[in-house]
């Protein structure tokens, strides 16, 4: 019976037991046949057969015990012996456990994140049945009218629900307090099978137009905000300044369907009309809902998709947005519905990080491989010194297989001890990682507990590692010849010193792999550096962004009332801007609908004389609406013409400022002053009065994009939300208290939110920072491990060749020549490793080219730099043993014989 099989027997007791049952049952049946043939009755025969076999249960037990006990006994003996062997050389054990623990810990940490973000199923009833309905190529966001059509036209879902994630402002006015919220359709909770902890949840009866404003709280929010008070039901919570009645609290196991964030407040979809200035419920071009469903039992995905396709044309036809131009209409009507499995819910976090996490998983796997090579080398060196011990054991009768098994047990023990330490490292490391990607307003709630899958993963990689690093030494031990070894141990000159040994191959391999990692880290670091030090076209230091939201105004009944409301709004914003400009410490201030690198975009088709394209999408330009001094505040240079000023009023001719890219694209030259363009279907033209420098609009990675700036002062539209930018002489955060007070004086009901421009830009680089920091750390770790490996091998070889070197010196070899000899050996290893490593890097870094910016994956500077670093560190590491070799005293070395 094989080793593995026996282990299986131990774990799966019942299987062995069943096999035995079958075997003994056969015996009884045969014996009973025989007895029946000699004249016994069937019953008697059966009883007698059993009796002869003896106590059946005891028999089974005894037979199995033989298997399990013998095996357990040898395992225990092996483990005890292994433990003693490790304790006997604590230095070796410490280095081995530490390098393995770092490797295993890094793997477990990254895997914990992958598990939490990508693999874990939602804690709901039968998560494997869940599907997400998307719009195929149009993405996964529905409009409410389209969702209602889908809901009412289908009969093939056991349950289907829509939800829209939002940030609810809990404050009555002043500085905003935002928490994660969800607008959910009526059967959201029943479809998922989520239970209330307190009170009741939102049901189908709560979801109808004009519904009362009720809310259901997430358990975490209920605990932190209400101290888990059950009397919360019936109380009122303010969402966007509107009262909502609390109906209940969700079970704590459910934190929402969006992995990575915990939903604090749920409200019925229909109540969106209560808080919105313009409700999205009937907007046919606002895409804000996600749809999850549970198909009828037995309905396969393909059949489900066929049914969805069947209802799609009618659903789209019924919801065609009126304002769409002809070409967009055709495109809209051709829309589809698509269902895909979504057992783990839906997650923006997953979309953003799964690629990066996969890269990091690959990186840490290589780190573990390098650590394994290190331990294998240590074990090899050790097995050489232990050859005598092994030879003695062989000589007194131990089997070779027994010795190999003993050594493998030692490796396994080493791996297990390391994985315990590694799990501790991972526990800490995965939390540190999450805090690295979390930002203030978007905290990340991930379940990082060590579940069975993570522990299983750790166990598997530890075992694989043990096999990997334990195999070579064990194999070598299996070939020890006791007589020769015992004889040779008296002599000083080591037999079988070879130019190419397993140990050297391992070191060259280590150097190759770690060079590849260091090159990868170099690329990531360069990318992050390029992005974070680039000139984005604006000066990000010293700018405070103040996002202001005015409370919802009652709907105006007459045109005069509407005009008056608009005037009041303009007054409020103008007053605020003027007071910000005279604030002590503020150098400049302005306002804009959008600020750079906020991931929000506004674009439209630009129509100009002489600029014609086949596809209207090629005519798209980014738009922003700004006040005067916007460019001065952000530090974007005005290249020609003038800034917006008091001349630009609602009645005056409409004007615009364009960036250089826009001027070149639509007017053919930077000199675009006086030229005219139209936006979309709007017939009124804009005249260009100024040209500004290019700047990044949505992300730092984007190419230079055309941007048209229009004047806020000329807009006749009401906006409830505006962002003020204030340039400060000192730290922008120092202005916050004064601005808080100032807004309260201008309009107390206004809600505000602060962030600095630098923070906003940094937030867009989190993924790059994560990759740069981690690949840097792992690259350094790999470098250190490889250098330790090289040093160890060289030192070991020098020690082994002490006699030979002594003789060389005695025969007149110069000490410099000895140094050269050892260094040349190390140089060969380095050279082979570096060449192989460059090859690996060239093949490997191509897979991460999507993460890079500003350089190619085969960037020669990075590769040369990394190779040079290795050469220097490697020669330094080999220098110590080389110098020691040159100091060998020939007399002493030979006397030691």
């Amino acid at each position, binding site marked *: *019976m094989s080793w593995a099989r*026996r282990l299986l027997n131990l774990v799966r007791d019942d299987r062995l037991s069943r*096999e*035995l049952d*079958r*075997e*003994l049952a*056969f*015996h009884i*049946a*045969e*014996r009973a*046949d025989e007895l029946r043939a000699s004249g016994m009755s069937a019953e008697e025969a059966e009883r007698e057969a059993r009796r*002869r*076999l*003896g*106590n059946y249960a005891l*028999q089974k037990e*005894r*037979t*199995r015990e*033989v*298997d399990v006990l*013998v*095996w357990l006994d040898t395992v225990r003996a092996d483990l005890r012996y292994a433990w003693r062997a490790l304790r006997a050389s604590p230095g070796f054990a410490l280095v081995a456990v530490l390098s393995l623990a770092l490797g295993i810990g890094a793997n477990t940490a990254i895997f914990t994140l992958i598990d939490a973000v990508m693999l874990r199923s939602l804690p709901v009833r039968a998560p494997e049945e869940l599907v997400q309905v998307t719009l195929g190529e149009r993405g996964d966001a529905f409009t409410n009218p389209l969702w209602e059509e889908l809901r009412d036209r289908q009969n093939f879902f056991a349950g289907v629900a829509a939800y829209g994630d939002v940030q609810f402002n809990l404050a009555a006015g002043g500085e905003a307090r935002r928490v994660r919220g969800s607008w959910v359709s009526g059967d959201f909770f029943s479809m998922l099978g989520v239970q209330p902890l307190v009170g009741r949840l939102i049901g189908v009866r709560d979801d109808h137009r004009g519904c009362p404003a009720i809310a259901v709280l997430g358990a975490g929010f209920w605990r932190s905000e209400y101290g888990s008070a059950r009397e919360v039901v019936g109380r009122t919570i303010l969402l966007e300044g509107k009262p909502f009645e609390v109906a209940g609290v969700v079970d704590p196991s459910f934190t929402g369907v969006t992995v990575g964030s915990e939903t604090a407040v749920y409200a019925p979809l229909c109540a969106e009309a209560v808080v919105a200035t313009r409700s999205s419920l009937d907007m046919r071009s606002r895409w804000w809902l996600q749809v999850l469903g549970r198909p009828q039992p037995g309905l396969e995905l393909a059949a489900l998709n066929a049914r969805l396709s069947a209802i799609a044309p009618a659903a789209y036809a019924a919801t065609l947005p009126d304002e769409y131009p002809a070409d967009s209409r055709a495109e809209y009507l051709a829309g589809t519905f698509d269902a895909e499995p979504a057992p783990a819910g839906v997650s923006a976090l997953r979309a953003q990080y799964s690629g990066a996490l996969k890269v990091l998983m690959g990186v840490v796997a290589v780190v573990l491989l390098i650590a394994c090579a290190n331990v294998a080398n240590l074990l090899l060196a050790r097995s050489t010194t232990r050859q005598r011990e092994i030879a003695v054991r062989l000589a007194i009768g131990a089997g070779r297989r027994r010795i190999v098994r003993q050594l493998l047990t030692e490796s396994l023990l080493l791996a297990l001890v390391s994985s315990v330490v590694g799990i501790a490292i991972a526990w800490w490391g995965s939390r540190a990682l999450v805090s690295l990607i979390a930002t203030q307003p978007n905290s990340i709630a991930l379940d990082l507990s060590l579940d069975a899958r993570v522990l299983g993963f750790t166990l598997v990689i530890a075992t694989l590692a043990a096999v990997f690093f334990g195999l070579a030494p064990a194999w070598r031990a299996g070939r020890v010849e006791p007589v020769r070894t015992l004889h040779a141990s008296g002599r000083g000159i080591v037999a079988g010193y070879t130019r190419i040994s397993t140990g050297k191959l391992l070191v060259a391999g280590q150097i190759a792999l770690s060079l590849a990692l260091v090159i990868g880290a170099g690329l990531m670091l360069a990318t992050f550096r390029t992005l974070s030090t680039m000139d984005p076209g604006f000066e990000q230091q010293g700018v405070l962004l103040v996002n202001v939201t005015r409370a919802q105004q009652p709907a105006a009944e007459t045109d005069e009332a509407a005009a008056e409301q608009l005037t009041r709004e303009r007054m409020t914003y103008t007053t605020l801007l003027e007071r910000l400009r005279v604030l002590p410490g503020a150098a400049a201030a302005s306002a804009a609908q959008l600020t750079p690198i906020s991931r929000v975009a506004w674009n439209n088709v630009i129509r100009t004389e002489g600029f014609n394209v086949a596809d209207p999408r090629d005519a798209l330009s980014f738009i922003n609406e700004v006040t005067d001094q916007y460019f001065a505040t952000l530090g974007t240079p005005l290249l020609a013409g003038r800034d917006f000023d008091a001349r630009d009023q609602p009645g005056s001719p409409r004007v615009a400022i364009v960036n250089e890219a826009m001027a070149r694209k639509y007017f053919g030259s930077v000199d675009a002053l006086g030229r005219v363009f139209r936006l979309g279907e709007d017939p009124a033209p804009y005249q260009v009065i100024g040209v500004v420098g290019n700047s990044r609009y949505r992300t730092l990675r984007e190419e230079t994009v055309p941007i048209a700036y229009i004047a806020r002062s000329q807009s006749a539209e009401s906006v409830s939300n505006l962002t003020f930018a204030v340039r400060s002489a000192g730290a922008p955060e120092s202005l916050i208290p004064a601005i808080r007070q100032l807004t309260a004086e201008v309009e107390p009901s206004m809600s505000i939110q602060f962030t600095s421009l630098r923070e906003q830009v940094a937030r867009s680089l989190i993924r790059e920072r994560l990759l740069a920091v981690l690949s840097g750390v792992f690259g350094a770790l790999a470098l250190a491990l490889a250098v330790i490996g090289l040093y160890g091998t060289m030192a070991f070889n020098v020690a082994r060749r002490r006699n030979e070197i002594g003789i060389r010196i005695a025969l007149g070899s110069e000490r410099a020549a000895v140094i050269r000899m050892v260094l040349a050996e190390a140089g060969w290893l380095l050279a082979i490793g570096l060449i192989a490593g460059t090859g690996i890097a060239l093949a490997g870094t191509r897979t991460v080219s999507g993460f890079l910016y500003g350089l190619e994956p085969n960037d020669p500077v990075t590769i040369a730099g990394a190779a040079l670093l290795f050469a220097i560190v490697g020669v330094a590491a080999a220098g110590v043993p080389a110098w020691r070799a040159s100091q060998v005293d020939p007399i002493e070395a030979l006397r030691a014989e």
Partner: protein
Amino acid sequence: MAKNRNDVLQGTLGMLVLKTLALHERLHGYGLTLEIQRASADLLRVEEGSLYPALHRMEQAGWVKAEWGTTEKNRQARFYRLTAAGRRQLATEQASWARLTEGVRLVLEQA
């Protein structure tokens, strides 16, 4: 049960099993008891209670190999066959058995 038949002497069961298997390609446990009984002209009888633990011990030592198969009566049975190691073991045991019986004979036959 009549006492005219000897149960297999403690310690010799393994050797008898190995020898019997050496003469057959493969046998199941029940077949082994029949074969030993037949070869000893009904003088020896295997105690069935110790046969299976012994078989499993030998399987673990690598002297025999087991596999599931079908008998003529179309029953599922576990068949055992001798391995090369088992053949060597048999030779060793037979040699020491010969020494033992020779020794015992000499002692008993001295005048």
